[in-house]
């Protein structure tokens, strides 16, 4: 608050507050959170409670969209890297699907999770070199759950 507020300023500040409140009511009527989205957010808790307790979270450490020089063109693949400890997953998302590699190279079973049914979607296997390929088109938010011989790793949710 300013020190030199007179009655007029008080009045104006009160009008500001009233207008903000009127906008808040308008937003609640004209542009509320869609009910199905609220529902999905509630459901997202299953990710936490169902998550394998020993699953490690691999955070997004590289995203070509923000970390690389901008490249023009419609078919530029989105390159992503998720890391946790010494395990890294590189992914390339194109219009054809998704390719990737687990590093250090090792076989893994990889589930592709979507928000519609967060417990299961596609499954793909990484070969001895850690490479995997999947023609599943990623639409909407997704995460990968990897099971290597030693551990379970889940990537951060991301939308591509």
């Amino acid at each position: 608050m300013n020190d030199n507020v007179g009655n007029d300023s008080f009045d104006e500040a009160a009008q500001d507050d009233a207008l903000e409140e009127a906008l808040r009511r308008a937003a609640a009527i004209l542009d509320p959170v869609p009910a199905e989205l609220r529902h999905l957010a509630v459901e997202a808790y299953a990710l936490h409670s169902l998550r394998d307790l020993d699953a490690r979270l691999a955070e997004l450490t590289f995203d070509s969209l923000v970390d690389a020089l901008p490249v023009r063109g419609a078919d530029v693949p989105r390159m992503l890297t998720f890391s946790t400890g010494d395990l890294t997953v590189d992914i390339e998302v194109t219009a054809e699907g998704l390719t990737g590699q687990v590093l250090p190279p090792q076989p893994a079973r990889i589930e592709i999770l979507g928000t519609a049914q967060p417990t299961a979607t596609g499954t793909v296997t990484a070969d001895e070199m850690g490479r995997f390929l999947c023609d599943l088109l990623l639409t909407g938010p997704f995460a990968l759950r990897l099971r290597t011989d030693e551990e379970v790793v889940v990537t951060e949710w991301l939308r591509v």
Partner: protein
Amino acid sequence: MTSCSGTVLLSRITAGIPHSAAYDDLPYTRGGAVDRDAVGALVQSAADGDAAAWKALVDGLSPLVWSVVRAHRLSDADAHEVYQTAWFRFAQHLDRIREPHKAGSWLASTARHECLKVIKSTRRLTPTDDPQVLDGISEDRTPEESLIESEEAAAEAERIRRMWQEFEELGDRCRELLRVLMASPPPSYQEVSGALGIAVGSIGPLRQRCLRRLRARLVARGVR
């Protein structure tokens, strides 16, 4: 055992928020902000397995996340996906959030970053007047049904619609700021800062300028 604590905390959040007759069905449309300490405790409880605490977080912070997404004017499909991404990632990070009482800011800035990525990857913005939003008042949602019952209420609905239209026509900076500020319950400036990437200290003056600009437009158009 843990679910009890969730219920208690939920009532703590809703307590002290007065209701107005026409908006009884809409939680948090008036008055007080979410108690930030309560948010911290809810995050803790949810991390410990309390589903009711999680639901309370969704109820209390969903409008903020939605406001952030709307402020960035994404297409409906993109808006929905960003909203989901923010919440799914929040669920993943539940037991690693460093400052649980700032969960609102965390969600707001996560949503913002995802919005910026969408804008960067599509470089496509929706036109200024989203017809769905403007037509919203004629759809049969419960709060509106009660509004349209009397002529007086119809006039009120028209007033709200015109106010919204003037709001939509504000410049980008003001429109973005006000869209986030009108989340319900009112967001903290910390959350607004996370939502828009602007310094906390500049929010107050900008808010004042934008509200007064809008008010001047409303007066000029005879909307009051």
